[in-house]
Protein backbone atom coordinates (compact mmCIF):
# COMPACT_ATOMS: atom_id res chain seq x y z
CA UNK A 1 0.00 0.00 0.00
CA UNK A 2 2.85 2.33 0.85
CA UNK A 3 4.49 1.49 -2.45
CA UNK A 4 1.25 2.15 -4.31
CA UNK A 5 0.87 5.50 -2.56
CA UNK A 6 4.43 6.45 -3.37
CA UNK A 7 3.92 5.35 -6.94
CA UNK A 8 0.74 7.39 -7.23
CA UNK A 9 2.39 10.44 -5.61
CA UNK A 10 5.35 10.09 -7.94
CA UNK A 11 2.99 9.83 -10.89
CA UNK A 12 0.86 12.78 -9.78
CA UNK A 13 3.97 14.95 -9.08
CA UNK A 14 5.39 13.91 -12.41
CA UNK A 15 1.97 14.55 -13.98
CA UNK A 16 1.75 18.19 -12.91
CA UNK A 17 5.39 18.93 -13.58
CA UNK A 18 5.22 16.97 -16.80
CA UNK A 19 2.22 19.03 -17.87
CA UNK A 20 4.07 22.23 -16.99
CA UNK A 21 7.04 21.13 -19.10
CA UNK A 22 5.01 19.90 -22.04
CA UNK A 23 1.72 21.83 -22.02
CA UNK A 24 -0.29 21.94 -25.19
CA UNK A 25 0.33 25.20 -27.09
CA UNK A 26 -3.42 25.58 -27.55
CA UNK A 27 -3.62 26.66 -23.90
CA UNK A 28 -1.30 29.52 -24.80
CA UNK A 29 -3.50 30.46 -27.76
CA UNK A 30 -6.66 30.34 -25.64
CA UNK A 31 -5.28 32.35 -22.73
CA UNK A 32 -3.69 34.90 -25.09
CA UNK A 33 -6.99 35.30 -26.91
CA UNK A 34 -8.84 35.87 -23.62
CA UNK A 35 -6.32 38.29 -22.07
CA UNK A 36 -6.35 40.36 -25.27
CA UNK A 37 -10.07 40.34 -26.09
CA UNK A 38 -11.43 41.05 -22.60
CA UNK A 39 -9.47 44.30 -21.98
CA UNK A 40 -10.30 45.44 -25.51
CA UNK A 41 -14.01 44.98 -24.86
CA UNK A 42 -13.82 46.36 -21.32
CA UNK A 43 -10.84 48.78 -21.11
CA UNK A 44 -9.40 49.29 -17.67
CA UNK A 45 -7.30 52.38 -18.33
CA UNK A 46 -4.00 51.32 -16.78
CA UNK A 47 -1.17 53.78 -16.39
CA UNK A 48 1.52 54.10 -19.04
CA UNK A 49 5.06 55.46 -18.88
CA UNK A 50 6.73 57.42 -21.67
CA UNK A 51 10.04 56.16 -23.01
CA UNK A 52 12.92 58.52 -23.89
CA UNK A 53 12.66 57.58 -27.59
CA UNK A 54 9.00 58.63 -27.72
CA UNK A 55 9.80 61.88 -25.94
CA UNK A 56 12.55 62.58 -28.48
CA UNK A 57 10.19 61.76 -31.37
CA UNK A 58 7.60 64.14 -29.94
CA UNK A 59 10.19 66.89 -29.44
CA UNK A 60 11.32 66.61 -33.08
CA UNK A 61 7.71 66.56 -34.31
CA UNK A 62 7.11 69.77 -32.39
CA UNK A 63 9.84 71.55 -34.37
CA UNK A 64 7.60 71.59 -37.46
CA UNK A 65 6.61 75.17 -38.26
CA UNK A 66 3.45 76.45 -39.98
CA UNK A 67 3.81 76.09 -43.73
CA UNK A 68 6.55 73.46 -43.56
CA UNK A 69 6.23 70.89 -46.33
CA UNK A 70 5.97 67.42 -44.81
CA UNK A 71 6.30 64.19 -46.77
CA UNK A 72 3.96 61.81 -44.90
CA UNK A 73 4.96 58.37 -46.18
CA UNK A 74 3.01 55.21 -45.37
CA UNK A 75 5.36 52.32 -46.14
CA UNK A 76 3.13 49.68 -44.67
CA UNK A 77 0.70 47.00 -45.63
CA UNK A 78 -2.73 47.16 -44.05
CA UNK A 79 -1.64 44.52 -41.54
CA UNK A 80 1.19 46.76 -40.35
CA UNK A 81 -1.21 49.70 -40.25
CA UNK A 82 -3.01 48.01 -37.35
CA UNK A 83 0.20 48.21 -35.33
CA UNK A 84 1.16 51.71 -36.49
CA UNK A 85 -2.36 53.17 -36.46
CA UNK A 86 -2.02 55.02 -33.15
CA UNK A 87 1.35 56.55 -34.09
CA UNK A 88 0.12 57.59 -37.55
CA UNK A 89 -2.99 59.35 -36.27
CA UNK A 90 -1.22 60.98 -33.30
CA UNK A 91 1.61 62.25 -35.54
CA UNK A 92 -0.88 63.58 -38.08
CA UNK A 93 -2.74 65.43 -35.33
CA UNK A 94 0.46 67.16 -34.25
CA UNK A 95 1.32 68.12 -37.84
CA UNK A 96 -2.19 69.48 -38.45
CA UNK A 97 -2.07 71.49 -35.23
CA UNK A 98 1.25 72.93 -36.42
CA UNK A 99 -0.45 73.79 -39.76
CA UNK A 100 2.09 71.96 -41.85
CA UNK A 101 1.50 71.27 -45.54
CA UNK A 102 1.21 67.51 -45.81
CA UNK A 103 1.81 65.29 -48.83
CA UNK A 104 0.57 61.70 -48.32
CA UNK A 105 2.35 58.97 -50.24
CA UNK A 106 2.19 55.21 -49.85
CA UNK A 107 4.68 52.45 -50.59
CA UNK A 108 2.33 49.46 -50.81
CA UNK A 109 -0.89 48.79 -52.73
CA UNK A 110 -2.73 47.80 -49.56
CA UNK A 111 -1.98 51.20 -48.06
CA UNK A 112 -3.79 53.18 -50.76
CA UNK A 113 -6.90 53.24 -48.61
CA UNK A 114 -5.10 54.40 -45.43
CA UNK A 115 -4.81 58.17 -46.11
CA UNK A 116 -8.60 58.47 -46.42
CA UNK A 117 -9.10 56.51 -43.20
CA UNK A 118 -6.71 58.61 -41.12
CA UNK A 119 -7.92 61.91 -42.55
CA UNK A 120 -11.43 60.96 -41.44
CA UNK A 121 -10.09 60.52 -37.89
CA UNK A 122 -8.50 64.01 -37.78
CA UNK A 123 -11.23 65.71 -39.82
CA UNK A 124 -12.30 67.96 -36.96
CA UNK A 125 -8.74 69.22 -36.38
CA UNK A 126 -8.24 69.76 -40.10
CA UNK A 127 -11.49 71.71 -40.37
CA UNK A 128 -10.59 73.75 -37.29
CA UNK A 129 -7.26 74.68 -38.91
CA UNK A 130 -8.87 75.48 -42.25
CA UNK A 131 -7.24 72.66 -44.20
CA UNK A 132 -8.05 72.66 -47.91
CA UNK A 133 -7.16 69.92 -50.39
CA UNK A 134 -4.45 71.08 -52.74
CA UNK A 135 -3.45 74.14 -50.76
CA UNK A 136 -2.66 72.36 -47.49
CA UNK A 137 -2.64 68.63 -48.20
CA UNK A 138 -2.43 66.28 -51.17
CA UNK A 139 -2.86 62.50 -51.41
CA UNK A 140 -0.54 61.07 -54.05
CA UNK A 141 -1.32 57.39 -53.57
CA UNK A 142 1.01 54.54 -54.48
CA UNK A 143 4.05 56.44 -55.82
CA UNK A 144 6.89 54.62 -54.04
CA UNK A 145 6.92 51.11 -55.50
CA UNK A 146 10.71 50.85 -55.66
CA UNK A 147 14.00 52.73 -55.25
CA UNK A 148 14.14 54.34 -58.70
CA UNK A 149 10.81 56.03 -57.98
CA UNK A 150 12.02 57.37 -54.62
CA UNK A 151 15.38 58.40 -56.10
CA UNK A 152 13.57 60.14 -58.96
CA UNK A 153 11.35 62.05 -56.54
CA UNK A 154 14.45 63.23 -54.68
CA UNK A 155 16.10 64.46 -57.88
CA UNK A 156 13.15 65.72 -59.95
CA UNK A 157 9.81 65.39 -58.17
CA UNK A 158 7.56 66.54 -61.01
CA UNK A 159 9.16 64.13 -63.48
CA UNK A 160 7.96 61.22 -61.35
CA UNK A 161 4.70 62.56 -59.91
CA UNK A 162 2.28 64.50 -62.08
CA UNK A 163 -1.08 63.60 -60.57
CA UNK A 164 -2.65 62.63 -57.29
CA UNK A 165 -4.28 59.33 -56.31
CA UNK A 166 -7.49 60.19 -58.16
CA UNK A 167 -5.75 61.21 -61.37
CA UNK A 168 -6.06 64.96 -60.82
CA UNK A 169 -3.09 67.12 -61.79
CA UNK A 170 -0.92 68.33 -58.90
CA UNK A 171 -0.36 71.64 -60.64
CA UNK A 172 -1.82 74.42 -58.56
CA UNK A 173 -1.20 72.60 -55.29
CA UNK A 174 1.53 73.39 -52.76
CA UNK A 175 3.65 70.77 -54.56
CA UNK A 176 4.39 73.39 -57.24
CA UNK A 177 7.13 74.55 -54.86
CA UNK A 178 8.63 71.07 -54.50
CA UNK A 179 11.27 70.09 -57.06
CA UNK A 180 14.01 68.15 -55.27
CA UNK A 181 14.83 66.73 -51.84
CA UNK A 182 15.88 70.21 -50.73
CA UNK A 183 12.34 71.51 -50.92
CA UNK A 184 11.00 69.14 -48.27
CA UNK A 185 11.22 70.38 -44.68
CA UNK A 186 10.31 67.12 -42.95
CA UNK A 187 9.68 63.45 -43.65
CA UNK A 188 7.39 61.49 -41.37
CA UNK A 189 7.72 57.84 -42.29
CA UNK A 190 5.54 54.96 -41.05
CA UNK A 191 7.17 51.72 -41.95
CA UNK A 192 7.11 47.99 -41.88
CA UNK A 193 10.43 48.11 -43.71
CA UNK A 194 9.42 48.83 -47.30
CA UNK A 195 10.74 52.10 -48.76
CA UNK A 196 12.22 53.51 -45.55
CA UNK A 197 15.78 52.67 -46.64
CA UNK A 198 15.23 54.43 -49.96
CA UNK A 199 13.97 57.54 -48.16
CA UNK A 200 16.99 57.42 -45.86
CA UNK A 201 19.38 57.06 -48.81
CA UNK A 202 17.94 59.77 -51.02
CA UNK A 203 16.47 62.26 -48.56
CA UNK A 204 17.76 61.87 -45.01
CA UNK A 205 21.40 61.29 -46.00
CA UNK A 206 21.24 64.52 -48.01
CA UNK A 207 19.97 66.46 -45.01
CA UNK A 208 16.16 66.25 -44.89
CA UNK A 209 14.89 65.85 -41.33
CA UNK A 210 13.30 62.43 -41.00
CA UNK A 211 11.45 60.60 -38.24
CA UNK A 212 10.27 57.02 -38.37
CA UNK A 213 7.49 55.06 -36.71
CA UNK A 214 8.23 51.38 -37.24
CA UNK A 215 6.85 48.03 -36.16
CA UNK A 216 8.40 46.23 -33.19
CA UNK A 217 10.52 43.79 -35.17
CA UNK A 218 12.13 46.63 -37.16
CA UNK A 219 13.27 48.54 -34.08
CA UNK A 220 16.70 46.84 -33.76
CA UNK A 221 17.49 47.65 -37.39
CA UNK A 222 16.32 51.28 -37.10
CA UNK A 223 17.99 52.04 -33.75
CA UNK A 224 21.50 52.42 -35.24
CA UNK A 225 20.17 55.09 -37.60
CA UNK A 226 18.70 56.95 -34.64
CA UNK A 227 21.96 56.73 -32.71
CA UNK A 228 23.95 57.95 -35.71
CA UNK A 229 21.60 60.90 -36.20
CA UNK A 230 20.41 59.90 -39.67
CA UNK A 231 16.85 59.80 -38.34
CA UNK A 232 15.95 62.29 -35.65
CA UNK A 233 13.20 60.34 -33.92
CA UNK A 234 12.00 56.75 -33.65
CA UNK A 235 8.54 55.77 -32.46
CA UNK A 236 8.48 52.13 -31.53
CA UNK A 237 5.44 50.17 -32.57
CA UNK A 238 2.02 50.40 -31.00
CA UNK A 239 3.47 51.14 -27.55
CA UNK A 240 5.22 54.23 -28.89
CA UNK A 241 2.01 55.32 -30.56
CA UNK A 242 0.13 54.97 -27.28
CA UNK A 243 2.82 56.98 -25.48
CA UNK A 244 2.53 59.68 -28.15
CA UNK A 245 -1.26 59.78 -27.70
CA UNK A 246 -0.63 60.25 -23.98
CA UNK A 247 1.85 63.06 -24.62
CA UNK A 248 -0.48 64.97 -26.94
CA UNK A 249 -3.41 64.42 -24.57
CA UNK A 250 -5.60 62.77 -27.18
CA UNK A 251 -6.30 59.10 -26.32
CA UNK A 252 -7.01 56.80 -29.21
CA UNK A 253 -6.68 53.18 -30.32
CA UNK A 254 -3.16 52.99 -28.92
CA UNK A 255 -3.97 53.79 -25.31
CA UNK A 256 -7.10 51.64 -25.34
CA UNK A 257 -4.98 48.71 -26.57
CA UNK A 258 -2.33 49.06 -23.88
CA UNK A 259 -4.33 47.06 -21.31
CA UNK A 260 -4.41 44.09 -23.67
CA UNK A 261 -0.77 44.75 -24.58
CA UNK A 262 0.24 44.65 -20.91
CA UNK A 263 -1.76 41.53 -20.08
CA UNK A 264 -0.40 39.76 -23.15
CA UNK A 265 3.17 40.40 -22.03
CA UNK A 266 2.48 39.31 -18.47
CA UNK A 267 0.75 36.17 -19.72
CA UNK A 268 3.84 35.32 -21.74
CA UNK A 269 6.02 35.68 -18.65
CA UNK A 270 3.70 33.42 -16.66
CA UNK A 271 3.85 30.71 -19.31
CA UNK A 272 7.65 30.98 -19.50
CA UNK A 273 7.86 30.56 -15.72
CA UNK A 274 5.49 27.60 -15.83
CA UNK A 275 7.55 26.02 -18.58
CA UNK A 276 10.79 26.48 -16.68
CA UNK A 277 9.37 25.05 -13.46
CA UNK A 278 8.24 22.04 -15.43
CA UNK A 279 11.57 21.82 -17.23
CA UNK A 280 13.63 21.94 -14.04
CA UNK A 281 11.26 19.80 -12.01
CA UNK A 282 10.50 17.12 -14.57
CA UNK A 283 12.69 17.11 -17.67
CA UNK A 284 16.01 17.77 -15.92
CA UNK A 285 15.11 15.33 -13.15
CA UNK A 286 14.18 12.66 -15.70
CA UNK A 287 17.41 13.27 -17.61
CA UNK A 288 19.46 13.08 -14.40
CA UNK A 289 17.73 9.86 -13.35
CA UNK A 290 18.28 8.38 -16.80
CA UNK A 291 22.00 9.23 -16.66
CA UNK A 292 22.32 8.04 -13.10
CA UNK A 293 20.67 4.79 -13.99
Amino acid sequence: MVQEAESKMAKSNGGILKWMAEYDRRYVYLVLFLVVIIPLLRPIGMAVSVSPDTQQYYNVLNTVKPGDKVFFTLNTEYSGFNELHSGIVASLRVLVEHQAKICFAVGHVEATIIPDLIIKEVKSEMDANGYQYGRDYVILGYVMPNEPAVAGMAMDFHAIVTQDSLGRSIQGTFLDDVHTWQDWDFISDFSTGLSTTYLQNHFALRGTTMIVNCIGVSVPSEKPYLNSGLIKGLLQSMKGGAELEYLIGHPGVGLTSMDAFTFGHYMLIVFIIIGNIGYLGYVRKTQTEARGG
Partner: protein
Amino acid sequence: MADILKNRQLQLVVLVLSFLLVFVPYFIDIPQLDAASSELVVITSIVTAFTVALAVVSQYQRGMHYIVKRSKGWPFKAYMLISIALMLVFALFGRDSGPYEWVMLSIINPLSSVNYSILAFYMSSTAARAFRARNTKALLLLLVGFIVILYQAPLTGAMFPGINPIGVYFGATFVTAVGSMFLISVTVGAIVFGVRVLLGKEPSVLGSGGRE
Protein backbone atom coordinates in the same frame (compact mmCIF):
# COMPACT_ATOMS: atom_id res chain seq x y z
CA MET B 1 21.96 43.97 -84.41
CA ALA B 2 20.77 41.34 -81.96
CA ASP B 3 24.32 39.98 -81.71
CA ILE B 4 25.66 43.43 -80.87
CA LEU B 5 23.07 43.85 -78.12
CA LYS B 6 23.90 40.41 -76.74
CA ASN B 7 27.59 41.28 -76.52
CA ARG B 8 28.52 40.91 -72.86
CA GLN B 9 31.27 43.51 -72.95
CA LEU B 10 28.87 46.09 -74.35
CA GLN B 11 26.30 45.25 -71.67
CA LEU B 12 28.97 45.68 -69.02
CA VAL B 13 30.01 49.08 -70.43
CA VAL B 14 26.37 50.26 -70.36
CA LEU B 15 26.02 48.96 -66.80
CA VAL B 16 29.14 50.78 -65.59
CA LEU B 17 28.22 54.04 -67.34
CA SER B 18 24.69 53.91 -65.89
CA PHE B 19 26.10 53.31 -62.43
CA LEU B 20 28.53 56.23 -62.72
CA LEU B 21 25.81 58.49 -64.09
CA VAL B 22 23.72 57.98 -60.93
CA PHE B 23 26.57 57.52 -58.43
CA VAL B 24 28.78 60.51 -59.26
CA PRO B 25 26.10 63.26 -59.01
CA TYR B 26 25.28 61.99 -55.52
CA PHE B 27 28.67 63.29 -54.36
CA ILE B 28 29.75 65.88 -56.94
CA ASP B 29 27.44 68.71 -57.92
CA ILE B 30 27.57 69.11 -61.71
CA PRO B 31 24.28 70.53 -63.06
CA GLN B 32 24.48 68.85 -66.49
CA LEU B 33 25.27 65.53 -64.91
CA ASP B 34 22.43 66.06 -62.41
CA ALA B 35 19.97 66.57 -65.26
CA ALA B 36 21.17 63.47 -67.16
CA SER B 37 21.09 61.43 -63.97
CA SER B 38 17.53 62.56 -63.22
CA GLU B 39 16.44 61.56 -66.72
CA LEU B 40 17.98 58.12 -66.34
CA VAL B 41 16.31 57.59 -62.96
CA VAL B 42 12.94 58.63 -64.40
CA ILE B 43 13.38 56.21 -67.33
CA THR B 44 14.27 53.43 -64.87
CA SER B 45 11.22 54.24 -62.80
CA ILE B 46 8.93 53.99 -65.83
CA VAL B 47 10.51 50.74 -67.03
CA THR B 48 10.19 49.29 -63.52
CA ALA B 49 6.51 50.21 -63.49
CA PHE B 50 6.04 48.22 -66.69
CA THR B 51 7.49 45.17 -64.98
CA VAL B 52 4.28 45.11 -62.89
CA ALA B 53 2.29 44.67 -66.08
CA LEU B 54 4.78 42.04 -67.20
CA ALA B 55 4.33 40.23 -63.89
CA VAL B 56 0.55 40.09 -64.40
CA VAL B 57 0.98 38.68 -67.91
CA SER B 58 3.47 36.09 -66.64
CA GLN B 59 1.10 35.07 -63.84
CA TYR B 60 -1.68 34.57 -66.38
CA GLN B 61 0.52 32.47 -68.67
CA ARG B 62 1.73 30.34 -65.79
CA GLY B 63 -1.69 30.08 -64.21
CA MET B 64 -3.39 29.04 -67.45
CA HIS B 65 -0.74 26.36 -67.90
CA TYR B 66 -1.62 24.98 -64.43
CA ILE B 67 -5.34 25.11 -65.13
CA VAL B 68 -5.16 23.48 -68.56
CA LYS B 69 -2.97 20.68 -67.25
CA ARG B 70 -5.18 20.34 -64.13
CA SER B 71 -2.03 20.32 -62.01
CA LYS B 72 -2.20 20.06 -58.22
CA GLY B 73 -3.79 23.20 -56.78
CA TRP B 74 -5.25 24.40 -60.12
CA PRO B 75 -8.51 25.70 -58.48
CA PHE B 76 -6.41 28.15 -56.44
CA LYS B 77 -4.70 29.34 -59.61
CA ALA B 78 -8.09 29.87 -61.23
CA TYR B 79 -9.30 31.74 -58.16
CA MET B 80 -6.21 33.99 -58.28
CA LEU B 81 -6.61 34.79 -61.99
CA ILE B 82 -10.31 35.55 -61.61
CA SER B 83 -9.54 37.82 -58.60
CA ILE B 84 -6.91 39.73 -60.61
CA ALA B 85 -9.34 40.26 -63.48
CA LEU B 86 -12.16 41.33 -61.15
CA MET B 87 -9.98 43.87 -59.33
CA LEU B 88 -8.85 45.33 -62.67
CA VAL B 89 -12.50 45.73 -63.68
CA PHE B 90 -13.49 47.14 -60.27
CA ALA B 91 -10.69 49.71 -60.44
CA LEU B 92 -12.27 51.08 -63.64
CA PHE B 93 -15.31 52.06 -61.57
CA GLY B 94 -13.16 54.19 -59.30
CA ARG B 95 -10.82 53.44 -56.40
CA ASP B 96 -12.28 55.70 -53.73
CA SER B 97 -15.77 54.16 -53.79
CA GLY B 98 -17.74 51.26 -55.23
CA PRO B 99 -16.68 47.62 -55.49
CA TYR B 100 -12.93 48.28 -55.39
CA GLU B 101 -13.17 50.06 -52.06
CA TRP B 102 -15.53 47.39 -50.73
CA VAL B 103 -13.13 44.58 -51.64
CA MET B 104 -10.20 46.48 -50.08
CA LEU B 105 -12.01 47.27 -46.83
CA SER B 106 -14.08 44.10 -46.44
CA ILE B 107 -11.83 41.35 -47.80
CA ILE B 108 -8.20 42.31 -48.36
CA ASN B 109 -7.66 44.45 -45.28
CA PRO B 110 -9.25 42.05 -42.75
CA LEU B 111 -7.42 39.07 -44.31
CA SER B 112 -4.15 40.99 -44.21
CA SER B 113 -4.79 41.87 -40.56
CA VAL B 114 -5.53 38.24 -39.65
CA ASN B 115 -2.37 37.12 -41.43
CA TYR B 116 -0.33 39.46 -39.27
CA SER B 117 -2.22 38.92 -36.01
CA ILE B 118 -1.86 35.17 -36.14
CA LEU B 119 1.89 35.68 -35.79
CA ALA B 120 1.29 36.89 -32.23
CA PHE B 121 -0.07 33.47 -31.26
CA TYR B 122 2.75 31.58 -32.95
CA MET B 123 5.43 33.83 -31.46
CA SER B 124 3.93 33.61 -27.98
CA SER B 125 3.75 29.83 -27.99
CA THR B 126 7.24 29.55 -29.48
CA ALA B 127 8.72 31.98 -26.94
CA ALA B 128 6.98 30.24 -24.05
CA ARG B 129 8.41 26.89 -25.16
CA ALA B 130 11.85 28.10 -26.27
CA PHE B 131 12.83 30.12 -23.20
CA ARG B 132 14.25 27.31 -21.05
CA ALA B 133 17.11 27.65 -18.55
CA ARG B 134 19.08 24.75 -20.02
CA ASN B 135 22.51 26.20 -19.14
CA THR B 136 24.10 29.41 -17.83
CA LYS B 137 23.89 31.25 -21.16
CA ALA B 138 20.26 30.28 -21.59
CA LEU B 139 19.58 31.45 -18.03
CA LEU B 140 21.16 34.85 -18.78
CA LEU B 141 19.08 35.10 -21.95
CA LEU B 142 15.99 34.22 -19.95
CA LEU B 143 16.66 36.88 -17.31
CA VAL B 144 17.34 39.59 -19.90
CA GLY B 145 14.25 38.45 -21.80
CA PHE B 146 12.17 38.78 -18.63
CA ILE B 147 13.41 42.30 -18.00
CA VAL B 148 12.81 43.40 -21.59
CA ILE B 149 9.31 41.86 -21.73
CA LEU B 150 8.45 43.51 -18.41
CA TYR B 151 9.83 46.82 -19.66
CA GLN B 152 7.79 46.58 -22.86
CA ALA B 153 4.56 46.26 -20.86
CA PRO B 154 3.54 49.89 -20.28
CA LEU B 155 2.14 49.30 -16.78
CA THR B 156 5.49 48.05 -15.44
CA GLY B 157 7.26 51.30 -16.23
CA ALA B 158 4.49 53.27 -14.60
CA MET B 159 4.40 51.15 -11.42
CA PHE B 160 8.14 50.44 -11.10
CA PRO B 161 10.05 53.31 -12.76
CA GLY B 162 13.34 51.65 -11.81
CA ILE B 163 12.95 49.17 -14.66
CA ASN B 164 12.98 51.91 -17.30
CA PRO B 165 16.73 52.68 -17.26
CA ILE B 166 17.52 48.95 -17.32
CA GLY B 167 15.26 48.34 -20.33
CA VAL B 168 16.67 51.42 -22.09
CA TYR B 169 20.22 50.20 -21.35
CA PHE B 170 19.57 46.80 -22.93
CA GLY B 171 17.99 48.48 -25.95
CA ALA B 172 20.79 50.98 -26.32
CA THR B 173 23.59 48.42 -26.01
CA PHE B 174 22.86 44.83 -26.97
CA VAL B 175 19.95 45.47 -29.32
CA THR B 176 21.70 48.34 -31.10
CA ALA B 177 24.94 46.36 -31.29
CA VAL B 178 23.23 43.38 -32.90
CA GLY B 179 21.26 45.64 -35.22
CA SER B 180 24.41 47.49 -36.25
CA MET B 181 26.27 44.24 -36.80
CA PHE B 182 23.49 42.97 -39.04
CA LEU B 183 23.30 46.22 -41.03
CA ILE B 184 27.07 46.42 -41.48
CA SER B 185 27.33 42.82 -42.68
CA VAL B 186 24.43 43.27 -45.12
CA THR B 187 25.84 46.56 -46.41
CA VAL B 188 29.38 45.24 -46.83
CA GLY B 189 27.97 42.23 -48.64
CA ALA B 190 25.96 44.47 -50.95
CA ILE B 191 29.03 46.63 -51.70
CA VAL B 192 31.14 43.57 -52.47
CA PHE B 193 28.42 42.21 -54.73
CA GLY B 194 28.12 45.57 -56.47
CA VAL B 195 31.87 45.72 -57.13
CA ARG B 196 31.78 42.17 -58.53
CA VAL B 197 28.92 43.14 -60.84
CA LEU B 198 30.84 46.19 -62.09
CA LEU B 199 33.92 44.06 -62.70
CA GLY B 200 31.84 41.61 -64.71
CA LYS B 201 32.30 38.72 -62.30
CA GLU B 202 28.54 38.25 -61.76
CA PRO B 203 27.18 37.51 -65.26
CA SER B 204 23.89 36.29 -63.75
CA VAL B 205 22.92 39.95 -63.25
CA LEU B 206 23.04 40.39 -67.02
CA GLY B 207 21.11 37.17 -67.45
CA SER B 208 23.87 34.93 -68.72
CA GLY B 209 25.01 31.93 -66.70
CA GLY B 210 26.64 31.48 -63.27
CA ARG B 211 29.48 33.07 -61.35
CA GLU B 212 33.09 33.39 -62.42
